[in-house]
Every structure is written in C-alpha cells, then in structure tokens.
C-alpha cells in the first residue's frame, strides 16, 4: 500500500518536469521568444550559483564565436529573485547574449532541472537534450552537442 502511494507521488513529481522529447508549452516559447527555426540553447543560471560563475564565461565565449550563425541561439534565463541583483551579475559577467529575467521563477518551475546550472537544447519546440550541473569545458561540450544535432558552426 505504502509502496504504491510513494510510487504515485514519485510519478506525479517526475512527470511534471520537462524531459527530453517533451514539447515546450506555447506560453513559454512566446515568453522566451524562442525561434523554432533555430536550435536554442537555454542556460538557466543565478548570481548565487558558483558553478554558473565558472560556466558563464565559456558560454559567453561560445556566443561570441557563433553569434552570426542562423542555426543557433544562446539564451540565458536568470532565476535570481531580485532583478537588480541579476542585472548587476549579468553586467559583471559580461554577458552579451539575450537573457530572460525569471525573477518570479515561473519559467524554471516548468523545466524543473535537478541542478544548477542547467542547459536545455530546444529544437522545433521540443527538448532534444539536457545538461545539468557544472561541466568542465562546457563550450566544447555544447559545440559537440550541436554538431550531433546537425548544426554546422
């Protein structure tokens, strides 16, 4: 009895988050201004996340190298509850790519990643790959992922 109750609870919790293969709801697509013609790399980060501080300069470097590409877009989602703190952090990190300030945390609550930072690859409105946590040389990893998705950089 207890096992089945726990199973139902687990399934309810796990089903409510976005996983690979899921379609992103149209409200989020509109809110994040995702272009379905491109592969969008959505990077969830926050000023208090130490791993994000290590990862962001590499993501920024990749952005500078690929900003003219018509096939991809790098989009940041800052989940800081204070917009001012978030903007200050973005400025300090020298982020040049487009950032959605999710101070209400409504967007990240839909994705529900199990760690920070987290990267979601969205293609044709669907999540095609997820990378969670601090990953060394993330710029190279993203390049490799995009290549496997048929993106020419």
């Amino acid at each position, binding site marked *: 009895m207890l096992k089945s*109750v726990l199973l139902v609870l687990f399934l309810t919790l796990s089903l409510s988050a976005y996983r690979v293969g899921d379609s992103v709801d149209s409200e989020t697509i509109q809110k994040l201004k995702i272009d379905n013609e491109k592969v969008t790399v959505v990077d969830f980060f926050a000023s208090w996340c130490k791993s994000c501080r290590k990862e962001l300069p590499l993501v920024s470097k990749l952005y500078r190298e690929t900003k003219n590409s018509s096939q991809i877009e790098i989009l940041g989602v800052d989940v800081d509850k204070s917009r001012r703190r978030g903007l200050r952090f973005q400025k300090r990190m020298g982020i040049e790519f487009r950032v959605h300030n999710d101070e209400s*945390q409504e967007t990240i609550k839909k994705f*529900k990643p199990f760690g920070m930072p987290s990267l979601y690859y969205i293609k044709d409105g669907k999540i095609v790959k997820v990378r969670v946590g601090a990953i060394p040389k993330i710029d190279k990893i993203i390049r490799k992922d995009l290549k496997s998705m048929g993106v020419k950089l």
Partner: protein
Amino acid sequence: VKIVFTLLPLILLSGCIKEVQPWEKETLSSETMTGEIREDVERYEQHIYFSKEASKGGSGVGGGGCGCN
C-alpha cells in the same frame, strides 16, 4: 479503516514537507551557511588558543611551547 489510517497521516504530513529545489538555494549557498569558520577568525582564535595553552603547533604542527607568542 486501515487504508484511512495509513493515508490520512501521509496526506496530513505531506503538507509539512517541501523539498528545496535547486533554483531555491540562494540562502543555502550563502557563505554564512557553510558552517566553516572564516579564515581570518580562525587565525585569531588559534592565536588565542596558542597563547592561553602556552603551546605552539596546537593544531597539527609539531613544536614545543615556550608560551611567548
């Protein structure tokens, strides 16, 4: 009856449990939450300890105590 007695506490207690999500860890990531003593404070505390105990190397470093530091 058994089912009710099993489910009722579970339902009632589930309201007390709220898992902290990764994006909600701002306060937890604060330096003051680490439980570690700040380096400058620790140095000061060690100085007091060495002086009061008349010993040097009280925290792992070998050496005799002259009580003069």
